């Protein structure tokens, strides 16, 4: 009974917080003066410029996906499966951009390549124009989003490599070298996982708002935001958002039909079996060099540029005095958001993993769909649904931000929980059931403690995504409750460059420092 109640409540919470705002948006867009009308959609579909924008979104997403996949997969193999020197340091470094709001990387490249940037001091004026024009447009967007989403493909490749049974590769090695084994066994086995990562990158790029807005490359999410913000047109904003929602839905449908089954077929290696390591031998240095160069250019250079730009005591003093309050808020909202997401994700993941209710597939699809939906769309939906006097306890308080986090990021904690639960033998729960323990008791005393590593990972991932969130927070934050990434975004309008750079460095420290402290604390306690 308790199981049924809690799982149904979880589903209701996700429907109310995630699905209802989207339905409210659609209803608003097809209602003109109380009558059903598709006039707005007709206008959007008939407009040539909207198709051009859709083309922009597609080109950006496809180029970013191809580049991240082409480089992320070999990089993941090198870092997870070989004895490449410094591979752990490289893994940490390559992951950093994913932890930050992507526009921070864009700001850094602007400081370097902009018309009056660092490089302009060494290049001729016309060369600086070329680099600036290159940055403000498609190439710049691809560069920034490539460095941001490269870790998605890299980390998922590394994760899926651990799911391969090493005995298969060892058997392959008896008749072939490592290149043959990689080509015929390893890569084909991780291919569904890599494709999954590519789809994720495609959808994240398709929904990205901050980077194209900053680098002035007009894509669909930016247009949605503009329609909503500049022309005060809810209906048009929804109509603009719908093509993205449809594309997201179709891509996820294809993923479910063609890829999901295959990824489920990959058998998890049992603990202790480990991963077969490829020894690079004398050629190690030739592999280190390109990895180090790539890491230097897409991770180290942007951070160094921000550090150089912000190198004054006054910049940091100004940054702290102007944004200290929003930094504290960001910490607390991210921590609360992550905690709520972990609890919801746990029950949602349990429901999905155990197929505990008939609607498990629908709920799984809903969370993934919401994750892939542009944040601007979710933001508009939340405003439409909760902006009324009777619900001001939500709309006029930080609860609306937490709702936004839940709507967008539950998929992350839910999937991590589902994967974690897949590694816990069902016999443990069965044994306690036979002993007479109820579901709630079994869950809190057996399942949750056994899944604590996964839950901690879910909390950390939830925390990072809440902390770096810009799109939803910017649209819905109540007066006096802006978060740190939003504060950076608003101060960018004519704010001094050293102040903005200092804020970006503080954002990087604010993200990495708590993660480092938690990692050390939990490691010493033996949790990780």
């Amino acid at each position: 009974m308790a199981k049924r109640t809690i799982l149904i409540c979880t589903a209701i919470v996700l429907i109310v917080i995630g699905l209802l705002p989207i339905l409210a948006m659609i209803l608003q867009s097809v209602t003109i003066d109380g009558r059903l009308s598709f006039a707005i959609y007709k206008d959007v579909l008939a407009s040539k410029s909207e198709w051009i924008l859709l083309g922009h979104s597609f080109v950006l997403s496809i180029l970013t996906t191809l580049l991240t996949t082409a480089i992320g997969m070999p990089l993941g193999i090198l870092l997870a499966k070989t004895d490449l020197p410094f591979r752990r340091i490289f893994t940490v470094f390559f992951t950093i951009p994913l932890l930050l709001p992507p526009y921070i990387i864009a700001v850094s490249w602007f400081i370097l390549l902009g018309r009056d940037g660092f490089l302009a001091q060494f290049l001729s004026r016309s060369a600086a124009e070329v680099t600036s024009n290159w940055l403000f447009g498609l190439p710049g967007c691809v560069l920034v989003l490539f460095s941001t989403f490269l870790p998605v493909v890299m980390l998922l490749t590394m994760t899926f490599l651990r799911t391969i049974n090493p005995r298969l590769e060892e058997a392959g090695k008896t008749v072939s070298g490592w290149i043959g084994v990689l080509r015929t066994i390893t890569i084909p086995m991780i291919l569904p996982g890599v494709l999954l990562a590519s789809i994720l990158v495609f959808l994240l790029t398709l929904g990205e708002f901050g980077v194209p807005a900053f680098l002035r490359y007009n894509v669909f999410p930016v247009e949605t935001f503009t329609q909503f913000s500049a022309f005060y047109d809810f209906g048009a904003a929804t109509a603009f958002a719908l093509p993205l929602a449809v594309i997201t839905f179709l891509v996820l449908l294809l993923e479910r039909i063609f890829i999901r089954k295959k990824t489920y077929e990959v058998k998890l290696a049992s603990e202790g079996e480990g991963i077969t390591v490829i020894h690079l031998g004398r050629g190690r240095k030739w592999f280190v060099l390109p990895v180090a160069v790539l890491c230097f250019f897409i991770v180290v250079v942007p951070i160094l540029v921000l550090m150089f730009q912000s190198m004054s005591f006054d910049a940091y003093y100004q940054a702290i005095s102007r944004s200290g309050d929003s930094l504290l808020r960001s910490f607390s909202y991210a921590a609360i958001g992550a905690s709520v997401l972990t609890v919801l994700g746990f029950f949602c993941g349990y429901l999905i993993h155990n197929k505990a209710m008939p609607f498990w597939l629908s709920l799984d699809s809903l969370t993934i769909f919401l994750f892939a939906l542009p944040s601007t769309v979710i933001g508009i939906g939340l405003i439409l649904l909760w902006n009324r006097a009777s619900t001001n306890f939500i709309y006029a308080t930080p609860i609306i931000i937490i709702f936004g986090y839940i709507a967008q990021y539950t998929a992350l904690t839910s999937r991590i929980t589902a994967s974690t639960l897949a590694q816990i033998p069902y016999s443990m729960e069965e044994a306690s059931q036979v002993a007479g323990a109820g579901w709630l008791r079994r869950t809190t005393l057996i399942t949750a403690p056994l899944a604590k590593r996964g839950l901690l990972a879910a909390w950390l991932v939830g925390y990072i995504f809440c902390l770096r969130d810009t799109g939803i927070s910017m649209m819905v934050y109540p007066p006096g409750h802006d978060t740190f990434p939003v504060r950076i975004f608003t101060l960018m309008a004519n704010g001094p460059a050293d102040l903005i750079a200092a804020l970006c460095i503080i954002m990087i420290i604010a993200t990495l420092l708590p993660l480092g402290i938690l990692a050390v604390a939990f490691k010493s306690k033996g949790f990780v």
Partner: protein
Amino acid sequence: MEYRNRAFIKVVSVVFVFLMIISGCRKKTMNEVVVYVSEDQVFSEPILRDFEKETGIKVKAVYDTEETKSTGVMMRLISEKNNPLADVFWANEPIRAEVLKNKGIAARYQSPNAREIPDIYKDPEGYWTGFSARARVFVVNKKVKDIPTSILAYTEPQWKAKAVIANPLFGTTTVEIAALFAIWGDDKAMAFMDDMKKNEVEISTSNGESADFIASGQFAFSLVDSDDAVSRIRQGKSIAMVYPDQGKNQIGCLIVPNAVVLIKGAKHPDNAARLIDYLLSKETERKLAFADCAQIPLHPGVETPADIKPIESLKVIKVDYGEVARKMEDIQPYLKQWVGY
């Protein structure tokens, strides 16, 4: 194992409770005012902080971003018409204030501090009041010898493919074009726009970008806001600022004041009035003149830095901002077509 689990739960609980305390258990205060701001945060926030210090009234603000073309808070105000959270709107130009008036979102308030501000910069019914203005000026690259002095330069053959203007669908450029439609009439204004297009004017994404184009020597001149020009001149960029159409038979330059609006149904009306009075004071105008936004005080006799001309010394376009707001709405389809949107 059990000990570790307990320790884990304890650590997580302590962190959670601590964060709940710092986020939610702050002292509740009703002595506050909620303001939505479309003036850049970097300039407006210090003023609001000074207000907090001087009055003890807590200011809760929502700021705009450049990426929303500084109109995001307008969207919020409109969507919150039946559930207003804001008490005051600080707009960076008066047209938005007019839109709020026309949509029934603004309330009347005539501040005693606004008596000396010229009537042209105030709504006659008291729905909004202007202060600290920007002028629409030319930035001209210093290498250009024959300096343009009129907005009509955009249509002259000698400037073919050498001039820039920010996208007229957004911001103060829209205001300027709508003002031209209001004073010239539709036919003359459309002819001007068409001639400008034939003269191969470059369209930039913002006034700031236009000013950068001129500073880099890519183009000869552009219409921008005076704060864009002054800030770059103070940075040592190679540009000069020219107030256009200052001659005897010329129309003058457009003045774009900030505007402050009391929101209908404001939950803190007294504090809202105090904030409006504060924004409309001479001292606030002096601060905004000396800040990097270099805004022109509308009160007579307010001290200004040397690079800002007093309002009394400028020939300005005499325009009814209410009519400009109406015109702006009318010409939007034409402007979209003009831009190729």
